[in-house]
């Protein structure tokens, strides 16, 4: 059965190769090849899952050694896959949601002439992501890690002719590279510490080394996670990444790739457990990001960017949970999975809305759409209820556990973290209700629109072709798009309950991540009640602001916080001023110095030699008599020298 693992990756990889190398001949069937291979991978995943279930709880780790990759003295990197419960969970999430989104894209990208390539990139992403979660050592994980970065780069910049998309793609890759630097340093540290970087030996010998080293490794891994999972301070790329086609946002920037950081931390759980300082840093990053993302999400009028802020915030929850140690690992993953369902569903819903609204993304130009696109409304609504943690739906189970675990941290830290998580829940309810109300309720602000809004550039390129000035005619999306949304909505509704009842998910994952029951200072019911109160408060506030009053079509100036939040809390401006501008000045100075100083010394030497020979050349005036004088003088000197030698 181990031999099937490689097949998981091989199927989408084959798809990517065929679609990208195949050329125009495959334009007609390319999308179906891509979807089929993604689905094939999912089927293989199901077979493996069934196989794992058939084994004993402690015997559910399969490894497949393919070949020796980089063998240099003590440095032995192998291409080995490891399938355990944690990877299995991810495999199913990735291939499952991935297949659905492939299917959705068939409809969504129907009019794009480069659809074949889009599916090639999607398949490439699946392969890289599967490699990431199936790798048996950190270096191979690194390959997948950068591979998904590449796929993300290609997909964000899929509409390359738009400078904004190209810039966003570049930014995403660069910011991710900073995180990757952390991962590579972590691997180097592991190598110097343990002499290897395979999961087994590294995590098994954590106890043999000093806590300082482990903290260093942990912090570097955290840096990597921050990059990939858009956590503060490397979160700035995620908002811009929404330039990509919506299915990409759903799959990569909501459901799977951005959660890789959480995977990394949970996978390295043993290491973090032994390095409490690193763990604390993880929780702090998670808590800060969950608030940061939530605040940003409240201020955005662009539906995708609002959802991106939400993604950031939800991943903040997961990171927070992962930072709590064995108390939180399982819940982090559980939230990751449920989030995969409902966030992907929300994004697909948003895509459906945009599809209907001539690719308008500004929610202030939506309104009252529930009548026109019922399926989208229902699925989106279920996703909404799931994310805010409506009792009984997925988000309720997973998020509640995280908040409990945060309180269970104990001491002041516990109160602060738990408080932040609670506050986050309230803000989540607020901004999600805001999105819901602005999109599906209220008056139909898209009617009789005189001019297109200059504020937000439209995302989809087809907008100009289809004529943006025309009044949109909202309509339900085709079946190929609604079916994935329905499936995901079902997952959002029942996933949490299915996992939580009888602690199914806990028992499934525990052998890998370990688990430890948290004991919050207050009872679990109190926490749940507090969460629900926050939820009601947040949703009520949103209703008060956006439900009862008409939404202005042009955004009001807003408070200082709102304005800052619209600009991603000024983090981008900071980056721009310090890194971009500073970097520009630095390179310009260096270019100048290279020319004037380094090259100048060389050219100066050459010039001085040239000048000297120019002077000397004047002696060569062409007059034979002049040369004769030098000869004669030379002879005189020779005579003098001879005489002197004799005298001495």
């Amino acid at each position, binding site marked *: 059965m181990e031999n099937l693992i490689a097949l998981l990756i091989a199927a989408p990889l084959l798809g990517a190769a065929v679609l990208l190398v195949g050329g125009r001949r495959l334009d007609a069937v390319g999308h179906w090849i891509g979807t089929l291979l993604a689905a094939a991978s999912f089927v293989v995943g199901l077979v493996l899952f069934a196989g794992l279930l058939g084994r004993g709880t402690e015997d559910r780790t399969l490894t497949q050694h393919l070949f020796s990759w980089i063998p240099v003295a003590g440095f032995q990197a192998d291409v080995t896959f490891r399938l355990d419960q944690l990877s299995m969970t991810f495999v199913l999430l990735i291939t499952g949601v991935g297949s659905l989104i492939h299917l959705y894209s068939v409809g969504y990208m129907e009019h794009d002439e480069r659809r074949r390539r889009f599916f090639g990139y999607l398949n490439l992403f699946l392969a890289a992501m599967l490699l990431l979660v199936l790798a048996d050592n950190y270096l191979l994980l690194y390959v997948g890690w950068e591979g998904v970065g590449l796929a993300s780069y290609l997909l964000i910049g899929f509409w390359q002719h738009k400078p904004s998309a190209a810039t966003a793609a570049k930014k995403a890759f660069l910011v991710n590279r900073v995180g990757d630097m952390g991962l590579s340093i972590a691997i180097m540290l592991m190598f110097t510490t343990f002499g290897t970087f395979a999961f087994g030996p590294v995590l098994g010998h954590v106890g043999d080394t000093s806590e300082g080293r482990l903290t260093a490794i942990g912090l570097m891994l955290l840096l990597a996670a921050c990059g990939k999972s858009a956590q503060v301070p490397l979160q700035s790329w995620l908002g811009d990444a929404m330039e990509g086609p919506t299915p990409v946002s759903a799959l990569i920037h909501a459901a799977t790739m951005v959660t890789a950081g959480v995977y990394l931390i949970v996978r390295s759980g043993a290491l973090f457990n032994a390095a409490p300082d690193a763990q604390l840093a993880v929780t702090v990053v998670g808590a800060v990001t969950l608030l940061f993302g939530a605040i940003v999400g409240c201020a955005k009028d662009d539906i995708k960017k609002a959802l991106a802020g939400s993604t950031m915030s939800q991943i903040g929850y997961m990171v927070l949970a992962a930072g709590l140690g064995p108390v939180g690992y399982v819940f982090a993953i559980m939230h990751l999975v449920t989030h995969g369902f409902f966030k992907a569903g929300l994004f697909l819903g948003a895509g459906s809305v945009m599809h209907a609204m001539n690719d308008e993304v500004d929610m202030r130009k939506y309104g009252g759409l529930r009548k026109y696109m019922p399926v989208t409304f229902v699925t989106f609504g279920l996703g909404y209820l799931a994310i805010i943690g409506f009792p009984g739906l997925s988000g309720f189970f997973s998020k509640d556990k995280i908040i409990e675990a945060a309180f269970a941290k104990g001491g002041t830290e516990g109160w602060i973290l738990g408080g932040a998580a609670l506050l986050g829940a309230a803000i989540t309810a607020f901004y999600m209700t805001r999105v819901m109300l602005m999109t599906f309720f209220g008056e139909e602000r898209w009617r009789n629109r005189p001019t297109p809004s200059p504020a937000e550039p439209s995302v989809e390129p087809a907008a100009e072709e289809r004529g943006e000035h025309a009044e949109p005619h909202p309509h339900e999306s085709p079946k190929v798009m609604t079916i994935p949304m329905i499936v995901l909505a079902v997952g959002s509704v029942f996933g949490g309950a299915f996992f939580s009842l009888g602690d199914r998910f806990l028992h499934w994952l525990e052998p890998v991540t370990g688990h430890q029951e948290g004991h919050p200072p207050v009872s679990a019911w109190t926490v749940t009640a507090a969460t629900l109160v926050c939820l009601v408060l947040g949703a009520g506030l949103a209703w008060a602001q956006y439900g009862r009053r008409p939404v202005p079509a042009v955004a009001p100036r807003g408070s200082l916080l709102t304005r800052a939040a619209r600009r991603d809390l000024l983090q981008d401006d900071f980056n721009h001023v310090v890194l971009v501008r500073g970097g520009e000045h630095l390179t310009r100075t260096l270019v100048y110095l290279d020319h004037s100083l380094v090259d100048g010394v060389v050219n100066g030497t050459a010039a001085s030699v040239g000048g000297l020979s120019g002077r000397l050349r004047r002696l060569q005036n062409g007059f034979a008599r*002049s040369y004769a004088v030098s000869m004669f003088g030379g002879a*005189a000197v020779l005579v003098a020298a001879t005489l002197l030698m004799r*005298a001495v």
Partner: protein
Amino acid sequence: MTAQHLAAYSTSTGEAVQFWILATVAVLGALGTVFLKRAVHSALCLAGTMIVLAVFYLANGAYFLGIVQIVVYTGAIMMLFLFVVMLVGVTAADSLKETIKGQRWLALLCGLGFGVLLLGGIGNASLKEFDGLAQANAGGNVEGLASLLFTRYVFAFEVTGALLITAAVGAMVLTHRERTERARTQRELAEQRIREGTYIPPLPAPGVYARHNAVDIAALLPDGTPSELSVSKTLRRRGQIRDVSREALNDLRALEQRAVERLERKAIEPPHFKRAGFKRADFKRAEEASK
């Protein structure tokens, strides 16, 4: 003791007197060679020095060389020099004005330094003992030379012969101008001149329009400028044209001056003579236009 023997190892008073007198002559001749303006004078001075040296050779027992010096050097080579000097132009006096900056001072400095060093060097060397040539010249100077020349130095001798031949051929190659085509007849030349049309009429005769009847004086054109065409090419190249174009005007001016002085009256202001406005080129152009 023969004179031969005497010359070999010691110097008689006669030789001393001869040396001091002739050495002075030689040095003067050498200085003359260097510093006299005209090449002919230089050549004559050099010939004098060479003859003096010939005498010294004889006094030093090199009888063969002494004679060769007179016959070959002074007689042949110096005559060659004179010949070339004549060919190039006897009267062309060399300006002694230095054109290269610092050349003269450097040359004199180097010469002085070198001379002092050389003299000092000789003075330093212990050259008191003279073996004399009595023994070497015993069988006769010429015989002695010959026996050396055809034994020890025979190879050098042969090579020198080759060198001389090469030099002769070289001189021929350098100076000889191969005439590769038949010389053009006068008729052909005339036709060519007409065809080119640059200057058809015969060249003006020198001094024809002037009051000076001499070959080295350029004829004056109607505007008073000299026509260099009227002077022989050779003279022109040597720069030996006498320019008298201003003379008439000067004479006129002098005459008027005298008239003013004598008659104490104001001369009629002569019209300002504008040379610039009426150059030879213009004249030529007018000439062509009239054709």
